């Protein structure tokens, strides 16, 4: 890369990280990495530009086919859960891109986090391509392509400092723009302090929140109110300072209420009602296919001693992403409420995760159907 290209690349990285709440589409279609031939691996991802550029960089020096499927310019995790990267887009990309004429095999590697939306069995039924869910993080791809073995570390989502800061930036940047613009208009002297406050709050929420224990909401909220009041006091009061004192805790409580808002598969996101639902495993129906094991971002599943059935060994870690439910070929997994109501797998397959509560629509005749319909 030339120096100019590198600067441009870095600038794009920053913009696409800071404003990743908005779509950044790149042209879908088939791309070559290195000099792929008929036996080279086929990788598929969504058309979020940042991911595609990172993927190409991570695979430098290797030969592979990269199939970019139209996901609305949205990252894999959000697009899969929200219905933008589904079986449809994958089937379309596999059939219309011409990849079938380029390779002699029919195996396509998808990011593991696509498993909430892309149904491996359906893709096979409709295109005759076999889906393998690769590692969660594309930085693990070179090793995975070498060994074709997904280690336990590769299947589990972690939230290292670098990712935390990126997510903090994603929430801080648009908020700082809005609040900064308001301050610039109403009280120019407060512009920089307001932006600094938003940045500090985002950074502290994303680096500390899940490490503070059970009283975390109260601790952070009290701190922020104290901070805002201190700022008001040090500026001798005034309307602008008072506004900042109100806006800052409001922003912070919004951030906390959102619970990372699904920024990472670490927390459950903003699906409050779903807190009372949990994943349940019907042991009689389980035939030990272990798709759940392959797709769970929190590694909740283990194999039993005989290796014949899955065990939901760590359900306290479950974030209810639904990947295991939708991928299980035996329909052995489903969502169950504390009251014993069930959401069958097909309803979850249909409505994905975040279609504004539509997932709660229970199939007619299913237990709890009347209650759900009355919502």
């Amino acid at each position, binding site marked *: 890369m030339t120096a100019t290209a590198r600067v441009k690349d870095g600038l794009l990285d920053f913009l696409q990280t800071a404003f990743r709440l908005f779509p950044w589409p790149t042209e879908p*279609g088939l791309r070559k990495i290195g000099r792929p031939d008929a036996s080279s691996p086929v990788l598929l991802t969504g058309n979020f530009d940042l991911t595609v550029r990172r993927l190409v960089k991570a695979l430098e020096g290797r030969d592979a086919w990269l199939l970019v499927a139209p996901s609305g310019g949205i990252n894999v995790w959000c697009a899969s859960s929200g219905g933008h990267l589904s079986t449809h887009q994958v089937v*379309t990309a596999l059939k219309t891109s011409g990849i079938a004429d380029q390779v002699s095999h029919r195996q396509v590697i998808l990011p593991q986090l696509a498993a909430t939306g892309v149904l491996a069995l359906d893709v096979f039924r409709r295109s005759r391509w076999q889906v393998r869910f690769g590692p969660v993080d594309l930085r693990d791809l070179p090793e995975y392509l070498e060994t074709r073995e997904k280690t336990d570390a590769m299947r589990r989502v972690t939230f290292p400092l670098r990712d935390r800061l990126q997510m903090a930036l994603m929430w801080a940047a648009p908020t700082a723009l809005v609040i900064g613009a308001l301050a610039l208009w109403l009280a120019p002297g407060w512009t920089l302090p307001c932006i600094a406050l938003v940045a500090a709050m985002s950074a502290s929420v994303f680096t500390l929140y899940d490490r503070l224990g059970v009283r975390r909401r109260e601790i952070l909220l009290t701190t922020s109110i104290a901070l805002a009041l201190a700022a008001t006091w040090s500026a001798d009061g005034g309307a602008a300072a008072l506004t900042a004192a109100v806006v800052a805790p409001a922003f912070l409580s919004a951030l906390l209420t959102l619970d990372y808002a699904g920024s990472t598969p670490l927390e459950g996101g903003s699906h409050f009602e779903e807190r009372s639902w949990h994943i349940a495993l019907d042991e009689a129906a389980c035939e030990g296919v272990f798709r759940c094991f392959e797709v769970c971002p929190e590694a909740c599943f283990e194999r039993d001693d005989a290796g014949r059935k899955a065990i939901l060994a760590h359900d306290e870690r479950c974030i209810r992403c639904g990947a295991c439910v939708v991928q299980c070929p035996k329909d052995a997994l489903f969502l169950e409420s504390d009251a014993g109501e069930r959401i069958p797998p097909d309803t979850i397959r249909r409505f994905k995760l975040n279609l504004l509560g539509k997932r709660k629509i229970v199939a007619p005749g299913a237990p709890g159907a009347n209650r759900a319909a009355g919502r």
Partner: protein
Amino acid sequence: MRWLETSPERYDAGMRLITFGRVAHLHAGVAEAAVAKPGDRVLEIGCGTGAVTLRLLARGARVTAIDQSPDMIEQAKSRAGTADVAFLEQTAAEIDALPEASFDAIVLSLCLSDMSASERAWVLGGCPRILAPGGRLVAADEVRAPAGWRRVLQRLWRLPQAALGWLLTGALSHPLADLGGELQRAGFALRREQRWLHGSLALFVAEPSA
């Protein structure tokens, strides 16, 4: 018009708004061109909320309507009631599974512009096989307006629309630069062309070239 599709409820109202109501002319034109006589078998690719489907049915066609969005199909289904129509939840890329020479007309209304270039080529290329002898293809979509003041007008009008679409998630659709040419490259001969809204909405009627 992908962002409108995130909610079927706002799709129809949104389409009317951004086309100044011309979308109704386009829908009527499509149905009229597609159905030559009652009983014609029509395949509608990308039926959406069923605006064209209903018009096809009203003209007596037997319709097979496909769409990849279950929400859209649900909407279209409830509007069509008990009429003679089969709805399939599938992608346009799967029309290769449909039987040969099984339709008198294929309709693609406002869906080609949501596809990538390779997808369009593949879908259009697969159409002649499933058309019965004498069958026709009716493609209507947002296209690039003719050069000059009309294209400037289109660009200006699209700017806020594109910004809104970008903000409200979903990719942007682009007006097709050469719909007629793409139809010809897919093996069709153009029979008729009609335009609305200063040339930015176009309807093509085409038949497989012999």
